[in-house]
């Protein structure tokens, strides 16, 4: 890809906020305290423990100070450059046309000090590529606005083949008339549209539902066990040390932390749509505000956990390249709807994947002989093709529908394992640039494979060419 080179004089490097080393040092010190653990506390005694903690804190604070001195960032052309490291110098250039998501994170301490962290996700990075921690809130907001404006200018319409990327919010009738939507085209070169773009609020979660839904998670079942174990030890060994109590507390926290974290992270979850993409705001203590530019959603997953079916609740998440959403504990990374009823999910998913109606999905079931390979799931497995998406269903207890727009398909794979061959079955995998939501048409008849992959390849091609 050749970028028109901008010949503006290079911008001066900027430093992170001066309070950064203090905040970082404190954070590392807290981690160090956890690492020493209760066992260490027992062995060292209070005074020496406190001395060790202070020593570690001072060392970490100094290290953070040095690293702060060496860190700087600036925007050069259409790249954000981050310089860091004292001994091992590193300069990272982040091409903004590859920007997948920008998140403004404000942990509790940072909120108290008026600071914020800016996290950028780019393609091909296994972890968050550019955590800029910490900036003053104003600087973070301005930088985010600027990066998104640059991304918007750089990103759209690769090679001019696709007039409008399919599956994107601004193509919608509701937002098309907004003045900001015009800026999505490559015409808006000139003064960057800094300032708030008009935003349409799509959904605000009911915190009560979120609370109840998180109580309805299997992690709580482990709670009685976590409490009972030390009581049992107390009666058998007739002594209950401080360490035992502390360990119990830790164990309890360990079991219930997943639902509690979701509760804290997704409190006041708000989804909005603006010209620069989807906007998600959430969080009770640590607040996060994420912007996903148009066309970055690789796949959407809708889940029906068993315990939520009584309320008719589902949750939805989106797969964005660069964001990791592998396991449930980290699913807050790509949350699209923490909890909600089916009509809500239908509305939100329709917002991300225009033209897809969640309630009208009927999957083609797998043949009866697939029961030999998936005795419990055979009744659930299935896939379907709609006008705009491929969707596959899986999961016994937590039923999951994975939806991939044709335009986001990277490659298609057919895999046939030995037992499948015996039963004349095969699976079709749909690969996207995301990595958390596998879209697989499992255990299909061999006779339907060829028509299916031919159709998929054709539809993916048509979607890529904007047809």
């Amino acid at each position, binding site marked *: 890809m050749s970028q028109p080179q901008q010949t503006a004089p290079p911008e001066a490097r900027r430093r992170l906020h001066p309070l950064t080393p203090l905040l970082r040092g404190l954070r590392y010190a807290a981690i160090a305290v956890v690492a020493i653990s209760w066992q260490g506390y027992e062995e060292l005694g209070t005074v020496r423990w406190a001395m060790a903690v202070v020593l570690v804190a001072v060392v970490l604070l100094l290290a953070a100070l040095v690293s702060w001195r060496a860190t700087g960032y600036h925007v050069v052309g259409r790249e954000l450059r981050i310089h860091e490291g004292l001994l091992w110098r590193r300069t990272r250039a982040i091409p903004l046309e590859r920007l997948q998501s920008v998140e403004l994170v404000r942990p509790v301490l940072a909120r108290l000090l008026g600071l914020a962290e800016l996290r950028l996700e780019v393609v091909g990075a296994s972890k968050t590529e550019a955590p800029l921690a910490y900036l003053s809130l104003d600087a973070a907001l301005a930088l985010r606005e600027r990066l998104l404006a640059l991304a918007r200018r750089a990103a759209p319409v690769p090679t001019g083949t696709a007039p409008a990327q399919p599956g994107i919010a601004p193509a919608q009738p509701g937002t098309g008339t907004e003045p900001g939507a015009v800026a999505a085209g490559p015409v808006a070169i000139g003064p960057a549209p800094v300032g708030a773009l008009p935003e349409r609020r799509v959904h605000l979660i009911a915190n009560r539902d979120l609370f109840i839904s998180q109580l309805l998670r299997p992690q709580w079942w482990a709670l009685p066990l976590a409490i009972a174990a030390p009581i049992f030890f107390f009666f058998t060994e007739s002594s209950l040390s401080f360490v035992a109590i502390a360990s119990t507390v830790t164990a309890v926290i360990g079991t219930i932390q997943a639902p509690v974290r979701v509760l804290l992270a997704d409190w006041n979850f708000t989804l909005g749509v603006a010209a620069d993409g989807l906007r998600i705001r959430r969080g009770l203590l640590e607040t996060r505000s994420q912007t996903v530019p148009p066309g*970055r959603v690789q796949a959407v997953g809708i889940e029906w956990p068993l315990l939520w079916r009584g309320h008719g609740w589902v949750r939805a998440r989106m797969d964005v*390249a660069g964001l990791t959403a592998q396991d449930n504990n980290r699913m807050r990374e790509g949350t699209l709807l923490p909890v909600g009823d089916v009509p809500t999910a239908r509305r939100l998913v329709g917002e991300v994947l225009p033209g897809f109606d969640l309630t009208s999905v009927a999957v083609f079931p797998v043949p009866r002989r697939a029961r030999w390979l998936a005795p419990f799931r055979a009744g659930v497995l299935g896939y379907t093709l709609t006008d705009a998406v491929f969707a596959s269903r899986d999961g016994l207890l937590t039923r999951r529908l994975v939806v991939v727009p044709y335009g986001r398909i990277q*490659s298609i*794979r057919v895999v*046939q394992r030995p037992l499948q061959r015996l039963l004349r079955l095969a699976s079709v995998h749909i690969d996207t640039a995301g990595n958390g939501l596998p879209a697989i048409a499992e255990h299909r008849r061999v006779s339907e494979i060829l028509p299916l992959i031919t159709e998929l390849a054709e539809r*993916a*091609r048509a979607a890529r060419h904007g047809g």
Partner: protein
Amino acid sequence: MLAAGFAAVVTLVRAALLPRIISSWGYAERAEDLLVRHGRLVRRLSIVPYGRMQFVDVTAGPLERAFGLATVQLHTAAAASDARVPGLPPKEAARLRDRLAALGEARAEGL
């Protein structure tokens, strides 16, 4: 001992089946995509559109070089994409690489 024996049996069986395993590899350059097929026990077929290609690798390890062979691998933005064509003569590998690069350039779609 048992493990070694098992490994030896597996190696022997593999050696006996090697021609069949190798003959299972195949690729086809179609108008819009590359097809790669391989595997006997687990059969796999990949369809990778040229427009989705991020970059092409041509590698030749010491053993491959000794026998005058090279491997061409196509990468997309999806980590799961699996389009590797091993055991090509270097000339064919270079031709395939150039052709894929040219087609990828012409049809580049990014993400």
